[in-house]
């Protein structure tokens, strides 16, 4: 059954037009991943309007291809320039940059791309098998279960995200509040508009993504003055083949990292912790842990495999539950709604060609992606040699174009600037941005799930604890929410020193 569906998917994904779309997407995505200030999430957001004129399947293939490209692109800047383009490429710089400095940049990049590919493939195969099962389970979910899953989603930011849990709660709540601005579709009342007509249509999360991640990131990176000192690189067939001969030696690291990546990845904000975790594991199990940080190829393999596996896994909850695992997946979810598709378990029965086309395109997209980046590394690396005074205004103009295109509204460009400033301040003060974006996306869904649940129970919160599946999810969510409070207490009980949790950025 699954194989048949996948074959159907390949018939959709492997048409000349859709393959061309995938190639374009990966090209753009890699450029976006390499450029400072542009990453997967806002790259996808800016190019979302471009897909309005396409069939939905081609649209989602373009967006996912941009995502794969951005994941690959992040590795290029980490290895060659010691600049992690995305938070989950930070761990890649530890060994990637020393390798590049030593003149083995080609080897490091080949290893990074190959690991990305292996990690992605692992997750895609799991998605192929698990997505239909999860969708079938989700079909039986009612509003209370969906609200419980939302709680679980946000609990993992608070409990597992690191940093100050209160600040995470603050950004989540702000996201939900911003989502409720405008017309309340249930009662028809205007909320939080304070008489301003401009606020009536509310805040679009796509604008928030572009502002927070795009403009905010630029403001943050100019502080450093932005002069790129990159290592030269030559990737040719010889280097690639030689590296491929070495890589099978690390099969244990590949398997371990892919599992960590998938497990962490389908929960929000998982890619970054996954990459750090798998780096730490690789170092612990290595015969020569002393080499890590000085240019050990395994130190590139581990985080890249995990990050890419996690990045792909974030698609799973998006297509099965309608709940995105990362801001990038959230933007894609927004795309689905704009194309007139209802994200969630029903997609599998109502739009099989779309879902399976998407899953099949994940295979083709990653194969095309790894071949393209291996071939065109020097071209992509050259992008970072464009002078800063040209790149900065160019990126800001691109962000403005993307913001305007969503609703053809000038006000949205102003919101983008405002969100940019907020993003800059929040980043500096360690308020995580990803939970805000996710809350803004899921706000309406969460609120209507809560309202419907309360209507079902005549206003009693007990409904979240009396339905078995719902109770299990809610209790797990509460437990994870409480983790930051429990952990120090648990450590004291065991007599261990209460070490502060290392803050990990969760903007994936």
């Amino acid at each position: 059954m699954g194989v048949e569906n996948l074959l159907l998917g390949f018939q959709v994904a492997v048409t000349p037009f859709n393959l061309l779309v995938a190639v374009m997407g990966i090209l753009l995505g890699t450029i976006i991943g390499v450029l400072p200030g542009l990453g997967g999430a806002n790259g996808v957001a800016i190019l979302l309007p471009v897909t309005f004129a396409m069939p939905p399947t081609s649209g989602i293939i373009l967006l996912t291809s941009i995502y794969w490209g951005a994941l690959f692109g992040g590795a290029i800047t980490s290895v060659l320039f010691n600049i992690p383009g995305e938070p989950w490429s930070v761990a890649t710089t530890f060994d990637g940059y020393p390798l590049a400095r030593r003149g083995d940049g080609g080897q490091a990049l080949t290893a990074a791309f190959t690991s990305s590919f292996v990690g992605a493939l692992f997750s895609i195969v799991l998605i192929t098998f698990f997505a239909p099962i999860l969708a079938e389970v989700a079909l039986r979910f009612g509003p209370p279960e969906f609200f419980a899953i939302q709680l679980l989603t946000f609990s993992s930011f608070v409990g597992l995200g690191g940093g100050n849990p209160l600040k995470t709660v603050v950004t989540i709540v702000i996201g939900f509040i911003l989502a409720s601005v405008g017309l309340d579709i249930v009662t028809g009342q205007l909320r939080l508009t304070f008489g301003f007509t401009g606020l009536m249509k509310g805040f679009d999360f796509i604008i928030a993504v572009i502002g927070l991640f795009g403009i905010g990131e630029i403001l943050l990176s100019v502080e450093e003055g932005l002069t790129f000192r990159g290592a030269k690189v030559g990737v040719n067939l010889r280097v690639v083949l030689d590296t491929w001969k070495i890589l099978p030696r690390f099969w244990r690291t590949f398997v371990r990292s892919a599992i960590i990546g998938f497990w962490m990845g389908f929960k929000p904000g998982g890619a970054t912790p996954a990459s750090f975790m798998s780096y730490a594991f690789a170092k612990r199990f290595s015969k020569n842990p002393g080499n890590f940080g000085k240019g050990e190829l395994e130190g590139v393999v581990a985080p890249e495999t995990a990050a890419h596996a996690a990045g792909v896994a974030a698609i799973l909850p998006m297509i099965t539950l309608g709940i995105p695992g990362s801001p990038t997946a959230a933007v894609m979810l927004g795309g689905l709604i704009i194309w007139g598709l209802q994200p969630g378990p029903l997609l599998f029965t109502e739009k099989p060609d779309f879902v399976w086309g998407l899953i099949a395109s994940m295979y083709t997209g990653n194969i095309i992606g790894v071949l393209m980046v291996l071939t065109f590394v020097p071209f992509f690396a050259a992008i970072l040699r464009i002078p800063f005074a040209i790149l900065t205004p160019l990126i800001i103009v691109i962000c403005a174009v993307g913001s305007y295109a969503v609703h053809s509204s000038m006000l949205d460009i102003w919101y983008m600037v405002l969100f940019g400033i907020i993003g800059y301040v929040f980043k500096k003060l360690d308020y995580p941005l990803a939970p805000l974006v996710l809350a803004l996306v899921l706000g309406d869904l969460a609120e209507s799930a809560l309202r419907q649940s309360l209507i079902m129970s005549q206003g009693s919160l007990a409904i979240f604890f009396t339905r078995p599946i719902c109770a299990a999810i809610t209790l797990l969510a509460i437990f994870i929410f409480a983790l930051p409070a429990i952990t120090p207490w648990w450590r004291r009980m065991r007599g261990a020193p209460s070490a502060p949790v290392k803050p990990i950025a969760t903007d994936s």
Partner: protein
Amino acid sequence: MRAADLITASILAIFGGLVIVDAMRLGVGWGMDGPKSGFFPFWLALILVGCCAVIMAQEARKATGRIFAEREKLRLVLKVLWPAVLAVTLMQWLGLYVASALYLGFYMRWVGRHSWAVVIPLSIGIPVFTFLVFEKWFYVPMPKGPLEAWLGY
């Protein structure tokens, strides 16, 4: 850093207060057929104000740590920010393409000190390329001004 944290938390708390006021206006209790419009924002804002209060208490006890941004860094940030704000203002009157051309040209010349031979082709070429991609290829309209009107778009 401490001052910046305190200011941010108080601004957010005030924002939460505003939300509470509006939620009270809408009603936060049980309506005819379920929770009223203000129900969800009210509880969210209450959590927001509570968290901000605790964050402020935490920060107030801390010694003054690292500073938010050094003067020099802040100057660099503003140097990016104000031309961008100006460009957005211009977009309202001149349209996105003309404003972008002026902005790109100004920034490249003023910050980058690039020669006119670089500045002019790029600052005209990029908006023209954007125009072709969005208006012609994907049919996504951008804000337009007098120049586009004169050209007949």
